[in-house]
């Protein structure tokens, strides 16, 4: 019964985003099904809206709050995985709780693509030994088309010029503020400050951070370590100090 009530309330909770407007539950389903790109959704504004909604509703269902938090956590993880460079090991199925069989099938699929990619690279190389003739008809035929620009449009020239003059794409993070801090760095910083068997408060772990984004990345690193079972996190009261304790093997 309580489940039902939770469902009803969550259905009533709607969001208005550029990518989607409607019940949050429907949005979550679309995101988890990869129908909408998680990077197109500002999770912070969803959270703000949820808090406002909860306040207005006046009642708190533990079920719906838990469900909301769990979904947001998964979305954040997915988003981090998408945004962070070189976080190759991320496996979205792990996070989505899909069956191990499916994860296995997915890894086989990627392996197959990698093998095919190797085959393609050899074909590309073999084929690069063939050169085609781009010169077109010899000058004897020039009289056939006195106006060679007859079918050429300025936009076509612009496209061609842009294709040739475009700088090579660097690491692509166009949809986020440039992040100059890496997870690796942040993990190393957390581990240095904790030391083996050490304890610290989160406040201490980020004391040297200059920018908010640096704190965020360090917090994500902490979550990553928590997920791997290397640290334990405790928070006695809401908005209280977060106690971090090293649990790693060495």
């Amino acid at each position: 019964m309580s489940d039902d009530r939770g469902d009803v309330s969550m259905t009533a909770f709607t969001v208005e985003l550029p990518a989607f407007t409607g019940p949050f539950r429907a949005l979550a389903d679309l995101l988890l099904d990869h129908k909408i790109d998680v990077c197109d959704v500002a999770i912070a504004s969803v959270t703000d809206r949820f808090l406002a909604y909860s306040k207005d509703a006046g009642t708190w269902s533990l079920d719906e709050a838990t469900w909301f938090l769990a979904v947001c956590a998964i979305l954040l993880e997915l988003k981090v995985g998408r945004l962070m460079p070189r976080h190759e090991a991320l496996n979205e199925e792990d996070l989505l709780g899909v069956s191990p069989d499916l994860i296995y099938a997915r890894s086989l699929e990627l392996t197959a693509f990698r093998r095919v990619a190797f085959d393609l690279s050899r074909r590309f190389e073999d084929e690069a030994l063939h050169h085609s003739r781009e010169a077109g008809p010899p000058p004897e035929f020039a009289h056939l088309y006195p106006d060679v620009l007859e079918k050429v449009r300025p936009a076509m020239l612009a496209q061609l010029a842009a294709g040739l003059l475009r700088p090579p794409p660097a690491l692509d993070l166009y949809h986020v503020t440039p992040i100059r801090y890496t997870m690796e760095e942040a993990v190393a910083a957390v581990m240095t400050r904790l030391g083996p068997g050490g304890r610290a408060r989160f406040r201490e772990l980020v004391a040297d951070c200059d920018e908010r984004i640096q704190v965020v990345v360090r917090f994500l690193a902490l979550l990553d370590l928590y997920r791997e079972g290397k640290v334990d996190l405790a928070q006695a009261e809401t908005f209280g100090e977060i106690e971090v304790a090293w649990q790693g093997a060495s």
Partner: protein
Amino acid sequence: MSETATDRRAERIRDLESLLFVSDEPVSSTVLAQALDVERREADDLCEQLAKAYAERGAGIVLRNVAGGWRLTTHPGAAPVIEQYVLASRHARLTKAALETVAIVAYKQPVTRHQISAIRGVNSDGVLRALVDRGLIDEVGREDAPGRPMLYGTTPEFLERLGLPSLSALPPLAPLLGVPDDDAEAEASEDE
């Protein structure tokens, strides 16, 4: 009579060779047939005969069916001489990430950027854009789903760069999937 027929065939091969020589892209057998005033099938026959003649005399030119048409290119053995002559090899090598991505697009097309990232397990936006810039893949439409995400597919240039006549000439993926997976088998038997 028979001699005249042979002469006409020789003349058609000559015209075919001239036509392929001036073209800067693969020429479909339909276009060739029209230009030479023959059946499409005969156009293909003539191309095959010409290709064989080149191969037999070890010519510096080869004729192959790529990207939906017939195209003359240089013999691979002459590549060192050509590359020295024309300044530089035009195409930079593709990175491992780019190869992996173009493979996924080739076999899964039309496919969204997000589906690609999901298969690769990493953000593939940058590599996807680089492949579009290189003309190997292109936007081919939008998926009929919320947000209407862009769909990507391979270009004729992709086939040309691989020397393949069509997408169906790509090596099959199924044998590489190795372990038979239950879903695939179930689907296969449903199809039967």
